[in-house]
Every structure is written in structure tokens, then in C-alpha cells.
């Protein structure tokens, strides 16, 4: 993989050598690699054992998160008593093994591979996106021979084959390591890419009649060891060495994918997965990768807008805050917060008392799930009801799949073996399910009751009995769509299914996962900080929208934008006036028809998530903090204060304007919040391949 040394450094899993020392002695073997004694766990692959002692054996096809295939022959090493060179990526360590990775014989094999790969390679590095972060370049410098013996003409293939609207393939650059094909076969399991033709004509493509529609396409760009796969969203935009990478958290993913945010001059140009074996492993969904990139800074609204004489006028923050405060002061005010704000913003709302009531909109589940996604991934019985993680929360689909199919960690297959029953309409997980009880709408409840009957041994249909027979091993997990879980009439049924599945043990502990899954980034953070009441339907009689509609509120502060759910809750505001804190408006919002709804009197521009610091809480209760990576839009020529602001900062400023003081800096705010909330005690900007999970 293209992980840099620094990324790998703090991975506890990568240091098999030290991990091994803790294991019982019978579990380990001692071998010699280039004269160095190495103790490693049995089953460890040579390439990983060497890596653990900082001896990098060159690889192309090997990727620590994919099954080793031994295809490229880059990692050839000499092993004493073996007549031929062996591939370090497929050979497990053995007691007393003596390995030479730099002997004449070994380098001879490695050089041969490089030479043969380069013989057909176009060598167009100066115009290649991968230039500067290309293992082929690196391995060539380190292990290649200088001159080419080949004088025949190179093979010509497609230079820009469009696999999809996102991905372009340069078939001349491709070295046929099959990482991309293997990724789709193994991780999402959608077998999206195929090898076409044979031998030296072999190329990567789509099986005939197929289209590349996987929601995980971008990952193949990351793992392609050369510049053969490129993203059409990023091609030729920048050279890697011009980019600054900063650790961040996905703006749209409730499972909390860890990302690298690559910026140039403060502008966010690309997102890449950041390894965290407990969260997203090394992958992210395309929706995160391409769907959450902020628009060009200069195209976005940087100044507050205030309605004067019916027209929106750009003003300074000083004026904007004053206008907003005027609408709140001495008025009945409610707050509508989206479930994608930072915990710090919810903290200000909870502490600062900006309004009499806070509602979360769109609606989120009333209670948080029990258990963890790691528990889900290690469950032996999984039931999914009324949702399609594949399309709604793609990374959750991978978490479910891990329970079913072994996945690869440090080159070794692990986990899997669980069974899945899906009760839902059309479903991306159906392919991996042991049973699929097709149902939707009101039929869902009937199908669940049917399965409960079968699980409880009280009859049930044949299909339900067959499904129930798959669900006998524990731990078990239950994943529910919010719509099904919200339905008041289903409450007893949900309890019954949880009991029948045994998701919670006698002591009340949930070793798997159980609950409704919201698709919004920080629904859990909102619920935990704003309280259960905020999670009630905003449009109900007690909710902020309901009260505004009934004429009980004069002002509504709407905070945020919702990925997956564009639009502002105009309907139901009644006669109330609105203050809108948003990151979604273009710079010409004041004049653009329909950009700002008529009910809005004040607009306060927010920074994009990737341009601010804060913390999110994943749907399984993992708090993850992040620092600003990009720079928010600002007003040209104006002072440093005249720019779009972090959600918590804008709220804190508004609170201050109203005389309710909360700290204006992130550190201070977190210090205040930390007395009550665990998330604020977890440092921001941690780049760890594992992060601790604190379920509150």
C-alpha cells in the first residue's frame, strides 16, 4: 500500500515483532532476516515480519488489507535451503528460517521484475498524477537496473479508458497487480472490476455488460501502485509535493471515516482515507471522497447577509451578529440544529441558551444504539431491518460484511463466518445474506413478527424458519432503519426481536450492536449533548418547527446544512422570522433567486467542516476530534475577522452578543465542556491507526 512510514509508525498491528513478544512463546517463531534476529507470531508473512523491524521488502501486488496473491514477483527473496527465490508476501515465517532480501540472488530477481515491468511502461512520470508518490518510481530507484536491454517497440494500450464518470484507467501504466480487482472482490464484495483477456494482452476493465457503479471506486485510486487509475475529480490538479495533508474526519459519515484532507494554499483539493483499523480500516466511500469537498473558496458566501427593506445586504460580522441578536433578544426563540454540527456547536447550544427550545432536524432516532460497530463486525448472527446500508451508509455495509466474510489484516485472513438475514426491500446486502425476507413499509413489521415467531420456536413461515436457523450463534446484532425504529407501534416488536436474537446478555451488555442507524454525521453527538427531547420530531407540537407553525415562536435560528438532505425547513415556520447559519450558500446568495428563503432575515456564513476544528461522535459512540485543514472563505481586502466561521464559533459569538458568555476559542470551549462531556477530553487532531472508543 502507499502508506508512508509515518502513517505506519504508530500502528500497533504493524509491529508484529513487538506484538509477538507479548504472545505465549509457542505462538512465535524466531527467524533471521538479513542477519537480524526477528521474533514473529506464527503465520506472519515474511514481508510483515521484515516491516516490523523496519526492513521494507519492495512490493507491488501485496497490500496488507488484501489477500496476498504473489503475482508481481517484486518481493522475491532468498531463503536458505530453498532452491528458488520465494515471494516474501506469500511466505509465512518459520522457525530458524534464514532470509536474505539483499543478496545477489534476491536483488537479481527483484531487478528482473522491475526491468520487465519498465520494459512496457510508458515512463510518462512527468505528466503522471502519481509522480512523487509512486512505488514503481521508488522501487525503480531502489532496486531497478539502470539501462534497458529491450529494443522492441512497447506495447500500446488505451491511455484514458473511462471506467466510470469518476475513474479513468491508463492501461499502459497498469502493471497488473490486481489490487483494484481484489479490492472490489474482497472488501465491498461487489466484484466490480475484472481482468479482461489473457497474458500480455490482459487488462483491467468491466465484465461485459457491466457498469462501474460501486460506491467505493475511489479506493482503487489510492491503492493502485502506479498512476494507472486516476480520479476524474482530481486528475492533473496538483503534484503531491505541493499538498499539505491534515488528519480529518469525514463530513458525511456517521461511522466516522478517518480521512486525510489534502490542501494547497488553504484550499481543500482531495480527500483520502486515513488508516484506522477500528473505524474505516483504509477505505472511504465515494460520497465522502468526492461529495464532501467544499466548493471553491472564492465562490462561497463569506459575509453575513441582513435583510434591509426586503433585500438582503452584505454586512460585517459585527453588524450581522447585532441584527441576529436583535431578532432573538426579547423574542420567543427556538433553535433548529441539523444533525451534522460539531459537538462543540451543540455544546454552545446546550450551554449558551440561545433559544427556549432546541430541535434536531431532520429527525434522528430517539435513542442511541447499543454496542459497537466492531461488535457488529465480529457478530455471528446479524439481522438488518428496513434499511439499505449499501446506499445509505456505505461504510456500515462494509462493517456488516466483515461479520460475514473474512477480511485481511496484515496479510492474514481474519474474522468472518457470521450469517446475515435481511428484512427489507431492494437491498445491497442481499448478495451477502443467508436469507432475505423481502418486505417494505407496513409489511416490515409483519415480517419481523414472523421471524420472531420462528426464533422463539412458535411457528412462523417456512422462509422465516429457514432464516431463523441461520441465526443461532452469538454474539448477534440488529441494525434497523430509523423509519422502522421510529414507528411507535413497533416499539414492542423491536424489543421482542432484540430478546429473540439475544443482542443483550443477562448483564445488560451488548457484545454486538443493536439499534437504529441514522445516516447523519453527528446524530449521536446531537442526541448526547442536546438531550433526548431534541431528538423528538421537530414538526410535532412540542418541537421547534411545530411551535413556530402554531405561532408560539417569533424567531427560529437554523444552524447548519444537512448532507443527504438538502434544503432549509421553510415549511412550518409560520410567521416566525429566521436566522440561518449555513455553509452552503454561494457568494451571490443575496441576489440569486431562491438561494435564501424569504423567511430568513439574517444569514451568518459558516466554514466548511474541513475548514474548522471540532469533534463528532460516531453512531457507535466513538468521539473523534479534528483541526481545521482548509481556510474558510473570506472577504477580499477585509480584516481577518471577516470570514466564514466555525459552527461553534459563530454560535458562541451570537451568544456573546446576547450577553451569555461562552469561550470563543476551541480550547477554552472544550475545557468548559469537558467537565460534562467525554468528547471534549479527547484531543483533537490525533492520527492513530486505532482510536479508543468511549461509549458514554
Amino acid at each position, binding site marked *: 500500500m502507499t502508506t508512508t512510514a509515518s502513517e505506519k509508525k504508530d500502528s500497533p498491528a504493524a509491529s508484529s515483532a513487538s506484538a509477538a513478544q507479548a504472545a505465549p512463546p509457542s505462538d512465535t517463531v524466531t527467524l533471521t532476516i538479513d542477519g537480524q534476529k526477528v521474533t514473529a507470531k506464527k503465520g506472519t508473512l515474511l514481508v510483515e515480519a521484515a516491516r516490523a523491524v523496519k526492513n521494507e521488502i519492495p512490493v507491488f501486488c501485496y497490500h496488507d488489507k488484501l489477500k496476498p*496473491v504473489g*503475482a508481481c*514477483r517484486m518481493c522475491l527473496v532468498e531463503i536458505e535451503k530453498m532452491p528458488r*527465490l520465494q515471494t516474501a508476501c506469500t511466505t509465512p515465517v518459520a522457525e530458524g528460517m534464514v532470509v536474505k532480501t539483499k543478496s545477489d540472488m534476491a536483488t537479481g530477481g527483484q531487478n528482473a521484475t522491475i526491468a520487465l515491468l519498465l520494459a512496457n511502461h510508458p515512463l510518462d512520470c512527468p505528466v503522471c498524477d502519481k509522480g512523487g508518490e509512486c512505488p514503481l518510481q521508488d522501487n525503480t530507484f531502489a532496486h531497478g537496473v539502470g539501462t534497458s536491454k529491450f529494443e*522492441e517497440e512497447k506495447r500500446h494500450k488505451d491511455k484514458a479508458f473511462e471506467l466510470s464518470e469518476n475513474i479513468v484507467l491508463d492501461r499502459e501504466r497498469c502493471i497488473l497487480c490486481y489490487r483494484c480487482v481484489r479490492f472490489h472482490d474482497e472488501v465491498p464484495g461487489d466484484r466490480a472490476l475484472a481482468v479482461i483477456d489473457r497474458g*500480455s494482452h490482459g487488462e483491467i476493465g468491466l465484465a461485459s455488460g457491466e457498469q462501474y457503479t460501486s460506491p467505493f471506486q475511489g479506493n482503487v485510486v489510492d491503492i493502485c501502485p502506479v498512476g494507472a487509475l486516476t480520479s476524474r475529480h482530481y486528475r492533473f490538479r496538483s503534484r503531491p509535493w505541493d499538498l499539505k495533508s491534515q488528519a480529518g474526519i469525514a463530513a458525511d459519515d456517521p461511522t466516522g471515516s478517518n480521512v486525510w484532507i489534502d490542501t494547497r494554499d488553504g484550499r481543500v483539493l482531495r480527500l483520502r482515507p486515513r488508516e484506522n483499523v477500528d473505524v474505516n480500516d483504509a477505505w472511504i466511500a465515494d460520497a465522502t471522497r468526492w461529495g464532501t469537498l467544499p466548493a471553491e473558496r472564492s465562490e462561497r458566501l463569506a459575509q453575513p447577509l441582513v435583510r434591509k427593506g426586503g433585500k438582503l445586504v452584505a454586512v460585517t460580522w459585527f453588524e450581522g451578529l447585532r441584527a441576529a441578536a436583535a431578532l432573538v433578544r426579547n423574542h420567543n426563540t427556538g433553535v433548529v440544529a441539523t444533525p451534522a454540527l460539531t459537538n462543540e456547536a451543540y455544546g454552545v447550544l446546550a450551554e449558551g441558551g440561545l433559544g427556549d427550545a432546541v430541535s434536531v432536524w431532520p429527525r434522528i432516532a430517539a435513542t442511541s444504539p447499543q454496542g459497537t460497530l466492531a461488535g457488529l463486525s465480529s457478530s455471528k448472527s446479524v439481522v438488518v431491518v428496513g434499511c439499505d446500508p449499501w446506499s445509505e451508509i456505505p461504510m456500515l455495509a462494509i462493517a456488516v460484511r466483515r461479520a460475514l466474510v473474512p477480511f485481511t489484516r496484515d496479510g492474514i485472513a481474519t474474522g468472518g463466518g457470521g450469517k446475515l438475514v435481511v428484512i427489507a426491500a431492494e437491498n445491497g446486502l442481499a448478495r451477502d445474506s443467508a436469507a432475505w425476507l423481502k418486505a417494505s413499509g407496513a409489511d416490515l413489521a409483519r415480517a419481523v413478527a414472523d421471524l420472531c415467531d420462528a426464533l422463539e420456536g412458535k411457528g412462523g413461515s417456512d422462509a422465516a424458519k429457514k432464516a431463523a436457523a441461520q441465526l443461532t450463534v452469538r454474539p448477534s446484532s440488529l441494525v434497523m432503519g430509523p423509519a422502522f425504529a421510529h414507528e411507535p407501534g413497533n416499539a414492542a416488536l423491536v424489543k421482542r426481536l432484540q430478546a429473540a436474537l439475544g443482542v443483550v446478555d443477562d448483564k445488560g451488555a451488548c457484545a454486538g450492536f443493536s439499534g437504529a442507524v441514522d445516516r447523519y454525521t453527528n446524530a449521536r453527538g446531537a442526541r448526547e449533548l442536546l438531550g433526548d427531547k431534541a431528538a423528538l420530531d421537530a414538526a410535532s407540537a412540542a418541537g421547534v418547527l411545530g411551535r413556530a407553525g402554531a405561532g408560539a415562536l417569533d424567531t427560529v435560528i437554523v444552524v447548519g446544512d444537512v448532507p443527504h438532505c438538502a434544503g432549509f425547513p421553510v415549511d412550518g415556520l409560520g410567521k416566525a422570522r429566521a436566522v440561518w447559519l449555513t455553509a452552503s450558500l454561494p457568494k451571490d446568495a443575496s441576489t440569486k433567486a431562491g438561494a435564501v428563503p424569504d423567511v430568513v432575515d439574517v444569514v451568518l456564513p459558516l466554514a466548511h467542516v474541513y475548514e474548522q476544528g471540532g469533534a463528532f461522535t460516531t453512531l457507535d459512540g466513538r468521539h473523534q476530534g479534528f483541526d481545521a485543514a482548509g481556510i474558510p472563505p473570506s472577504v477580499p481586502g477585509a480584516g481577518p475577522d471577516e470570514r466564514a466561521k466555525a459552527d461553534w464559533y459563530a454560535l458562541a459569538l451570537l451568544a456573546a452578543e446576547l450577553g451569555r458568555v461562552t469561550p470563543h476559542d476551541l480550547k477554552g470551549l472544550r475545557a468548559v465542556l469537558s467537565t460534562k462531556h467525554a468528547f471534549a477530553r479527547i484531543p483533537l487532531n490525533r492520527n492513530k491507526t486505532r482510536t479508543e472508543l468511549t461509549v458514554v
Partner: protein
Amino acid sequence: MPLDYQPILLPNPGRTTAVALTEYEQRGGYDGLRNALRKKPEDVTTMVKDAGLKGRGGAGFPTGMKWSFVPKGPGPKYLVVNADESEPGTFKDRDLMEIEPHTLIEGIAIGSYAIGCELAFVYIRGEYTVAGDRLRDAVDEAKKAGLLGAPSKLTRADGTPFSLDIVVFLGAGAYICGEETALIESLEGNRAMPRSRPPFPAVAGLYMKPTVVNNVETLANVPYILAKGVDAYKAIGNPPNNTGPKIYCLSGHVKRPGNYELPLGKVTLRQFIEEYGGGTPSGRPVKGVLPAGVSAPIIPAANLDAVLDYDGIKGAGSMLGSASFIVMDDSVDMLWAATRMVEFFRHESCGKCTPCREGTMWLEKTLYRMMEGKGKESDLETLQFVSKQIAGNTLCALGDFATSPVTSSIKHYRDDYLAHLVRIEKKSDKKGDKAAE
């Protein structure tokens, strides 16, 4: 003088129809299986080991030893018969299946009993439709007679019924499907690309379960061992390393091409060509012989006194492999021959691993250029250099195979190469069959 030898595997030379079950049983067929079922499975394996039977698929690996690697515990195990027979000049398994299908089935049954397999597969190359049909018919016959089935009417030594079903599967015709792990992939419905070992098939093969892959001829040897005993088997051939009968395929420049069953180690290559093949049709001297289809080094005329067995052919600088002898008289331009063989391997390379995928292509390009008369003396060095980059570095043996025609022809027939360097006009008319690809 041809040897006085009563063939065992193909006892009816010249026959074209299949031997039916009744006829097979009349000549003692399935006695081997019945004997085996009276013994413990591991004792059957020991007999095969003691008999010295080596794999006839190419690598010559001791069969009993291969069976003994299969773990003894519970859970499914598979026996897979390699009937892909795609090596140029190889046609012995075809005769065995078309004419003596029950010998193979009996061998499969004995092997399955020995390793604890209840479902065996025969992977036949796609073009062998007749063999496929006849084998299927024979399986049905054996099932009806209660010799096969789940369970069959036969009883094992431990008193439980013997249970075995055989699936006959026709591939889609690719050389690489003969490599045992690619064959397993293909059988599973995947692209035929070899797997990296470990794990070996004996531990994790078909559907990741313990699997033995054996060649057709290998298994066809087994009934005799069980029916007549280890000593009788060892009396055939040239013990200890070269026991049993062997079918030699003979083709190329000979008057009488065909399958010849002989004991291992009893005739020389020269005798074989002269006395069995009748010599070259042109009467011209033999220039070289390929002993294993195109997969092993060419044996030059100087080594024709090599004995036909594993050790003898090895001593002549080559490998017995599938024992498919292709004879070339002195009209053959060895550069042309090497080019044609490399062309075959380039075409059949599955492309999974770099050295074979890229290397065969470069070998072919350079050879084509030489055939066009545009060669330089330094090209010989390049060819050898590229061969060295391939050999020993590939995932499966196909890569090694691909280099042997080049390195052996340069070694023994350097002049043929040099002749092309000076040639101005093209004289590559024999290249015409490239279109046949």
C-alpha cells in the same frame, strides 16, 4: 526388436471404441477397488507409495506421498483428476478416457477411498467432448452397477458403505487450466490463474478444502497396483526410481506417430524413434527431440541413447514431463521452432505474474525480429538474459517452460540463429501457422 511387453493401461492397441463395464469386469476390472476396500485407507496409500508410482502429469511427484499429505480429520476432501491434457504433442489421457474409462474410474475410486473423498471431479479439456461423453457414460454404468454412488453397494473395511460420486466437467480449453491450482480456480468458476503456494492443495485446494490433483494416467496405474500387488507393479520398469508402465506419445517427423505403452526405462530414445516410430519419413537424420511436449529442453541428436524414464531423460539434460516426444529431422530451423514454441507460451501465459507475462512477450518480439532477418548477435545474449529473468522467478512452472525452447536451442543450435543474422530476404514460410492461434 520391439520389446515383448503386454500393455496394461491400453491393453488393446488400435482399438477406438470404449471398453464397457462387462468387458472390463471380465478381465478383472474393479478387483483393485474391491481389494482396496478390504484394507485401511492409509494402507492403500502405503501400497501406492511402495509401488513407486510417480505422477504422470509432468512433475513426476510420488503419488502415494501426495495422498499422504491430506489431513486425516473430518470434513470434505476432494480428488480432482487433471484431464486437461493441453501440452502440444500429448494425447495419452485422451485414449485412456475414450477407450479405457473404467480403468480411470477405478483409479479414482481407489484414490478417493485412500484420502477420504466422497466427491471427485474430472476436469477435461474442452475439446475432448468424446472423452467427456464416454467417461460420463461409464460413470453412469458404474453407478447402476452399484460400484459408485452415495452410497454405493460396496462396503469399506470398517463396515460402512463406500460412497463416491464423480463429476465430469469440461473446461473451456486453455493450456494454463492444466496447472493444478489454475485448474482448481477454473473448477470453482473463477479465471484460470494459478494460486500462490502455500497453502498447497493438499491443505487448502478446491473450495479451500484438502484436495489431491492427479493426472489421468497416474490414476489409471493405481488399479493394477491394488489388483496385482506392489511387487508385480515394481517388476515392471526400472526400479527403484522408475517403476510401472508409461504411455509415450510420439509425433513429429516419424513414420508411425501415436501412443506407445512401454515399461519405464527399457528402451532408448533412439530405439523408440527407430523401432516404434519407424524413423523419419524423409529418411533424414534426427536433429533434436522434444521429450515433454514443448515444456522441456530440446534433446540434441547426440543424446539419443538416453533411456526413456525419469532419470534417463534428466541425464540427457531435459525432463520426461508428460512423455510426449516430438521428433524433428534436420530440415527444421531451430530458430523457427523456438519462435513457434515461444509464441505458444506467450499466447497461453495467463498473465498473472510479471516475469512470464512480460518476458514471453519480449522473447517473442525479439524472435520475430530475428525471423525477419533483422537480428543481431547481441540478440542471443538478450534472449538468454530475458530467459534468466523469467526462469525460477515465476508463480507457476509455465514461465520456466517458456524459456527452455529458447535456452536449449541457443545452446545446441546456435548456428541456426546465426544463419538468420546474415539473411537478407525473409525465409520464414513456416511461420504461416501463426494464424491458427
